[in-house]
């Protein structure tokens, strides 16, 4: 009935045999991300850095060079301009001014006065004071750490500590790789992109949990098979679903990337990267880590035994 088949009905990809390559790749990706982050940092938006962002639409196509000269001569420190989606749309970034909030407010007025009649519409004005920027940074870090831990704890309750730890490490990988993505491409990192990072964590864990669920089931099904074989079978059994869901999500996100407008383009780019990386981390990190962490059949005894706490591992794992 189906018009398309992306995969053979019962794929047999030797994922577990590739586990070393996957982990090496993940390590390279993370090291690269951290290195880039340390050397060129993130292109923080006004939300986190504090400062002023003004998006204008001009009557005539804007002469960016000329505008840059004029705004640069106002004594406001670094002012960066870029065309934003259309020749008449310009995004103006003004660095955080020395002094208190009043100094920032004055800078907005200065820029507006200089632009004067040139502007047809002030499409967006964002100003974040140094204190709020600091608070948002802190809240963002806290939200990221707490959501990773919250997810890990939930998995620990529903599965086993091996699963929780493997999922947590895979998530840390996703977050680091995503931060690296924003750092390498120097895409503006703002509140929305932070939300993208957290959503990636949500998507990635979604993917991981589905496979873990299958691992648990497969372990209970076979009494004698070796663990790598079991893990590989679980991955292959869910492979079709993994790919289908990634594809539908990517379809929606690419549509949004192309048509959703400039404002959320960076955010969408992050999500697209996250779907790819989140899918990889399930197959390449989370499941192989289950093997390396020494997942045993005994710790995943059938449900009835688990409830009685018959096996020591189940009792200690809180399963």
């Amino acid at each position, binding site marked *: 009935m189906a018009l398309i088949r992306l995969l053979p009905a019962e794929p047999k990809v030797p994922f577990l045999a590739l586990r070393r390559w996957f982990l090496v790749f993940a390590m390279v990706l993370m090291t690269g991300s951290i290195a880039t982050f340390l050397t060129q940092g993130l292109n923080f938006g006004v939300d986190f850095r504090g400062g002023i962002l003004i998006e204008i639409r001009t009557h005539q196509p804007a002469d960016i060079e000329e505008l840059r000269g004029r705004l640069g001569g106002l004594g406001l420190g670094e002012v960066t301009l870029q065309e934003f989606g259309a020749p008449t749309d310009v995004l103006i970034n003004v660095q955080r001014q020395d002094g208190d909030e009043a100094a920032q407010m004055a800078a907005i007025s200065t820029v507006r006065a200089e632009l004067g009649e040139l502007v047809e519409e002030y499409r967006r004005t964002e100003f974040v004071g140094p204190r709020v920027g600091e608070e948002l940074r802190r809240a963002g870090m806290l939200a990221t750490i707490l959501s990773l831990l919250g997810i890990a704890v939930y998995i620990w309750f529903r599965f086993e500590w091996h699963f929780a730890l493997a999922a947590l490490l895979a998530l840390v990988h996703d977050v680091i790789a995503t931060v690296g993505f924003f750092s390498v491409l120097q895409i503006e990192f703002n509140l929305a992109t932070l939300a993208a990072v957290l959503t990636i964590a949500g998507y990635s864990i979604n993917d991981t949990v589905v496979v873990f669920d299958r691992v648990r089931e497969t372990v209970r099904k076979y009494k004698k098979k070796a663990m790598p074989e079991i893990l590989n079978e679980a991955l292959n059994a869910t492979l079709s679903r993994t790919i289908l*869901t990634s594809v539908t999500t990517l379809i929606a996100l690419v549509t949004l990337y192309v048509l959703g407008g400039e404002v959320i383009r960076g955010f969408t780019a992050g999500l697209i990267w996250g779907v790819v990386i989140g899918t990889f981390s399930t197959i390449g990190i989370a499941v192989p880590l289950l093997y390396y962490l020494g997942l045993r059949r005994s710790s995943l005894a059938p449900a009835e035994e688990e409830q009685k706490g018959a096996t020591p591992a189940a009792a200690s794992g809180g399963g």
Partner: protein
Amino acid sequence: MVQISRLQLLAIVGVLLAGLAFAAPNLLSRATLDRLPDWIPNQPVNLGLDLRGGSYLLLEVDVDGVFEEQLSGFVDSVRVELRRARIGYTGLGLDDESVVFSLREQADIERAREVLRDYIGDAVLRIDEQGRGSITLTDEAKAERRVSVVQQSIEIVRRRIDETGTREPTIQRQGEDRILVQLPGVDDPERIKELLGQTARMSFHLVDEDVVPGVDSVPPGSRLLQSQEREVAGAPREYVVRNRVMVSGDNLVDAQPTFQDGQPVVSFRFDSIGAQRFGEATRSNVGRLFAIVLDDQVISAPVIREPILGGRGIISGSFTTQSAQDLALLLRAGALPAELTVLEERSVGPGLGADSIAAGETASLLGLVLVMLFMSAAYGLFGVMAACALLINLILILGVLSGLQATLTLPGIAGIVLTIGMAVDANVLIFERIREEVRNGRGPVSAIDMGYRQALSAIIDANVTTLIAAVLLYNFGTGPIRGFAVTLAIGLVTSMFTAIMVTRLMVVSWLRAGRAKKALPI
């Protein structure tokens, strides 16, 4: 799982109808909605400021400044009262968060206590045996004052914004001493920021004409203030003004912009107490100058030509029409008890908002159609069912958003598009399971039953974990990000419902229609 009871059926249909009913207002025009009776859902989605255009201002109330002011008031009281009681003291001043002084004679300790007690309100006065004294504000008094100052500021902010004619502003307290102001439709908040940027404390003082500003030293009890008026040379004129307040702006009941000799001026009216004080003060000081002081700046300092008894007067100065209007507005709305600072500002013009809505609509619809096509292609008839469920899912999201009057923001639209992509996951899980069971040799009914049963735990675990991320996003995010978390969370719940209940209903109906004789269309 292939049995759906009558009750379940009713529940599913009920939810779908409710979703439709709540989503429907989004298709109607505002005028039609206003004509609808109250008992049917008539609220479209509540758009965030980033979509409808408007301004968001986060203000901080400078409560510490109020405490400082209160303490320096105590310094003045101590100076005046001890001197009046002929008690000698040294070292009077502010030290950190208290007023300190020491008495010359230990014999005066008791007397000083009695003299000062009446002037310090709920602050604490301590004088030790060596005669070292201190006045401090207690933490309780500070906390109480903080609450009342912020409350009062919110009230004044509201009045000032109402006076500008802004429609539907939201003004609420945030945290301990912050005020969040949301102004839909205001894409240029410059004027409002200007209005909120001054405390507008007005008072009338006599000018100390014996002292020449800038030449003589300023005697105690007076101070040197700058004027808004300018000298011929361009520098602001200066006045030495008596500290004692003739009448304060608190006694004003009305102020209006008007014209006098073609110049913009502000006319005002005092309440009865103010009128009486002003009358007395002007009667005994005819021929002298009095200064109209606003926020430590002299607006003008006219000569008192005759006693002003009716409680009405006119403030002239170097006004433009706009500044006369603003001053009248500020005086009508009342003075702020503390200074306000803008900590954060976000404004979006109507053009960008409309563009964002249009872009969001196109992206969601196209995304929806593409995913529906893909699902149909990948799973045949069952895929078509999942595609229908996806459409229903979108209607439900819209219905829940409208029903709860949750705010839809631009990242919120992104959340919906993301949900469109992810929502099919549950169906994909189920369908893959059914295929597997078929491969394992089960019959159609049994395969469907097992497919739903086996996929359920993965679906729930996967969605709960994502929900955890959404809840944390909501708790730590602000404004638009919260909008994203809300739609993501709503989308997760509705997608579980449509995948597990709605498609199952379709599949089961299809089974009952007796078409499952041969292979499953999957």
